[in-house]
């Protein structure tokens, strides 16, 4: 059991690591969308500084309790999901059902987004929150099926065991459809890029200052953690020649995040009213077919 070996400082290092990955996502986004290579590193810092400095905002008859809960749940969900993700072979909390924990933490995003939509008592926000629910429902099923596929392939729900089971061949190669579906559904659950349709409806538009920083930062962090989890799930964890395992994990995570952000910038926003039927009738059968293939070959 690696429980005793994980030192206490890891719990403090985890938010710092997640924060750094979220910053990396913001930098990639700045480069992909705005194309300014030189200033791309400073831009997220300056915007974060602006959010930190900014005055907060309350709207008329807002539901402050629910709004505060929503704003807090999003980064909390990202951090909790990161608890079970192994970086270089050892997660902060070694859980034999890490995949289930990870999915449960991700689903908390739904609550967060809806609460932030409901809280400010504003029409556009409300619409955005409900849009996110539809999107979350549509993508959660393929996401869960993909996680099950990985669990079947490795014979375990523990992320460390899943990473170890890819000694011979990465799951990204063995089950490429699952990998693609994971990337798509991870972006959709973090409402990023082509799946930022809820933001169109101004979800989070009535927030300002530290609340907004927590909400948008939590969203970046959610995407970052999903990308970091893709490494033990599909890319063999920290395995690789020459460099130590944590460095390889970091490199692979950054590669996945860069791929997500840059590919997402090349596509316009996918609106749920156009996409709902396709998401249900195409993505689920495809995920199930992949699951069938993997289950049969085991």
């Amino acid at each position, binding site marked *: 059991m690696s*429980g005793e070996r*994980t030192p206490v400082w*890891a*719990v*403090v290092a*985890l*938010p710092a690591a997640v924060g750094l990955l979220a910053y990396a996502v913001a930098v990639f986004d700045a480069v992909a969308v705005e194309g300014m290579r030189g200033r791309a590193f400073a831009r997220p810092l300056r915007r974060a500084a602006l959010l*930190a*400095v*900014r*005055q*907060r*905002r*309350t*709207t*008329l*008859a807002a539901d402050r309790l629910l709004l505060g809960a929503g704003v*807090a749940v999003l980064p*909390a969900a990202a*951090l*909790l999901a990161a*608890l079970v993700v192994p970086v270089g072979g050892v997660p*902060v*909390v070694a*859980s034999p*059902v890490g*995949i*289930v924990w990870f999915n449960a933490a991700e689903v908390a995003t739904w609550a967060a987004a809806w609460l932030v939509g409901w809280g400010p*008592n*504003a*029409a556009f926000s*409300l619409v955005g929150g*409900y849009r996110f*629910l*539809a999107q979350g*429902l*549509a993508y*959660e*099923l393929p996401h*869960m099926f993909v996680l*099950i596929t990985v*669990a*079947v392939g490795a*014979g*375990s*729900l523990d992320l460390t065991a899943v990473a170890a089971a890819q000694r011979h061949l990465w799951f990204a190669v063995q089950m490429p459809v699952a990998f693609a579906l994971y990337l798509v559904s991870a972006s959709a659950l973090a409402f990023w890029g082509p799946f930022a349709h809820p933001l169109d409806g*101004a979800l989070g538009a*009535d927030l300002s*200052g*530290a609340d907004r920083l*927590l909400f948008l930062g939590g969203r970046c962090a959610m995407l970052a953690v999903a990308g970091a989890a893709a490494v033990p799930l599909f890319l063999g964890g920290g395995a690789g020649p020459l460099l130590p395992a944590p460095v390889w994990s970091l490199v692979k995570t950054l590669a996945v995040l860069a791929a997500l952000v840059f590919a997402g910038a090349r596509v316009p926003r996918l609106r*749920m*009213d156009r996409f*709902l039927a396709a998401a*249900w*009738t195409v993505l*689920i059968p495809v995920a*199930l077919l992949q699951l*069938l293939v993997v289950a*049969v070959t085991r």
Partner: protein
Amino acid sequence: MRTDAAVLALLLLLAAAYCAVRALSPFTEALRAGPFLSGGAPAEHALSRFHVRWYAVTMVFLAFDMEMIFMYPWALVVASLGAEAVVEMFAFLGLLLVGVLYAWREGAFRWA
């Protein structure tokens, strides 16, 4: 590391970070504003019963979600139980897929 200790520590760290960020702002009092309505004033409160036209989708999702509960332990034992377990689970999934197909044909996935 014990799970509950780790979770508690993380949440406390998050709360501390939030307080620190709030302390960084020179503007201590929050602005009392109306909801952002692109230049208009609100005619009524937005907190109302929102007509969710895709509620049929949530029913289908619940069905799949209940089945997911069985798939997590199934994933662990399918390799040892062999083809029989695969066939049973996929028969169950097939039934649910028929439900999705029915919902699709009935227009449950049409947004408006």
